[in-house]
């Protein structure tokens, strides 16, 4: 009667990336890693996956780099015209629905998962997730990309409503960092973009400033630094 979804064999796969969007009391914070891979090679180790659509709306891109870039460009173009006609900044909902239209109507060709985040004067800070297929889901927080698989449990535990900006930023950075630790397709630096009534702030967390997780060790310039340090005995027979 009902056609079974050809489940595991054809289950969708998102390629390299960890992207996150969270709301806090006052706005939203978008976060992402910076690795773009072609197969096993890291084509760009410092990419910027958080892309501006308007002054008050940004998106996180995951999946095919080409597809997500072209969708961004089209939506930015449409939003620009919409803003002129409307006479005031576009709302986050409109931006998200434009992304949805492209994602849904081209579902057979596109392979990109997008998180739309921004602030407008009507609804405040809002996050919309638009996964493969073009479903649109408004959420208090959203995660996406291949690295997000490792974050479902983390967010189930760590997410709270009504966080402060600092709490939310730390949560995002910690989460992306955890995903980078386990997902081969995510890596590099953590970028965040905060959007609220006052405007937009970009932050940059280089890999060496991120905390160390299980089975990771401190970085050094050289073995020689370790050997010459006051505490010898790093070599053993």
């Amino acid at each position, binding site marked *: 009667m009902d056609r079974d*979804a050809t489940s595991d064999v*054809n289950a*969708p796969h998102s390629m390299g990336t960890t992207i996150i969007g969270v709301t806090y009391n006052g706005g939203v914070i978008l976060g992402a890693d910076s690795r773009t891979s072609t197969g096993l090679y890291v084509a760009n180790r410092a990419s910027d996956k958080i892309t501006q659509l308007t002054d008050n709306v940004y998106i996180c891109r995951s999946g095919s780099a080409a597809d997500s870039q072209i969708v961004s460009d089209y939506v930015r173009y449409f939003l620009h015209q919409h803003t002129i006609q409307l006479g005031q900044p576009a709302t986050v909902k409109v931006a998200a629905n434009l992304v949805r239209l492209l994602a849904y109507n081209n579902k057979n060709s596109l392979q990109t998962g997008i998180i739309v985040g921004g602030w407008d004067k009507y609804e405040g800070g809002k996050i919309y997730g638009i996964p493969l*297929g073009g479903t649109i*889901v408004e959420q208090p927080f959203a995660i996406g990309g291949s690295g997000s698989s490792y974050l479902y449990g983390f967010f189930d535990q760590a997410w709270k409503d009504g966080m402060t900006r600092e709490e939310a930023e730390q949560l995002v950075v910690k989460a992306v960092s955890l995903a980078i630790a386990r997902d081969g397709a995510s890596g590099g630096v953590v970028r965040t973009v905060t959007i609220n009534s006052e405007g937009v702030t970009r932050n940059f967390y280089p890999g060496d400033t991120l905390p160390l997780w299980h089975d990771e060790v401190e970085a050094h310039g050289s073995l020689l630094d370790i050997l010459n340090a006051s505490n010898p005995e790093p070599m053993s027979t």
Partner: protein
Amino acid sequence: MVSSQNESNLLSSEGDSQRTQYPYVTGTSVIGIKYKDGILMAADMGGSYGSTIRYKSVERLKQVGKHSLIGASGEISDFQEILRYLDELILHDNMWDDGNSLGPKEVHNYLTRVMYNRRNKFDPLWNSLVLGGVKNGQKYLGSVSMIGVHFEDDHVATGFGNHLARPILREEWREDLTFEEGVKLLEKCMRNLLYRDRSAVNKMQIAKITEEGLTISEPYSLKTFWNFAAFKNPTVGAEGSW
């Protein structure tokens, strides 16, 4: 002949002459029953992404015009699109401004045509829908699948519900169920689905539609029962078994 992937090679143009998609974000079973005063429908709020339970607040029961209620399983983006089609349908119906309004039977028929015609183009809306409502005292409950197969019955279900809920409904459904009895019956089915359907999520809504109007409940969860001796000691009486 159905192909599950659109093969694009250098030799063929963007013809899309054969196209079937596959679903990405899916909802599981919907159950609907007629009861004394109208229709009751239940669905959980899960949106699965393959085997991951990705979204847990997806509303899969929605109002359609004055007299109808729709519940959907399958690809959520296609359901969102169907809601837009229905919006337009109801809008045009209202624009006639003739005091008449589309009843559930008509909406069901509209959906059947939409689903069947998409199926004929090898480009289905990947959903199974339940459509119920009351108009002029007449209760109506039907379902439509992604290939346009449609039924009208006293109780319907989609997906796993067909296998797990309908046998229960066949035994226990009656024409004169009260609201309380109907809700208990639906909850019995939903609890069963929660135990046995991997994509089920313990957060659901029940919707009621009568001549007076429609209400969709706030999301809530069901208690589950695990405290059985046979569960605590599954291999007693068969030592060495697994």
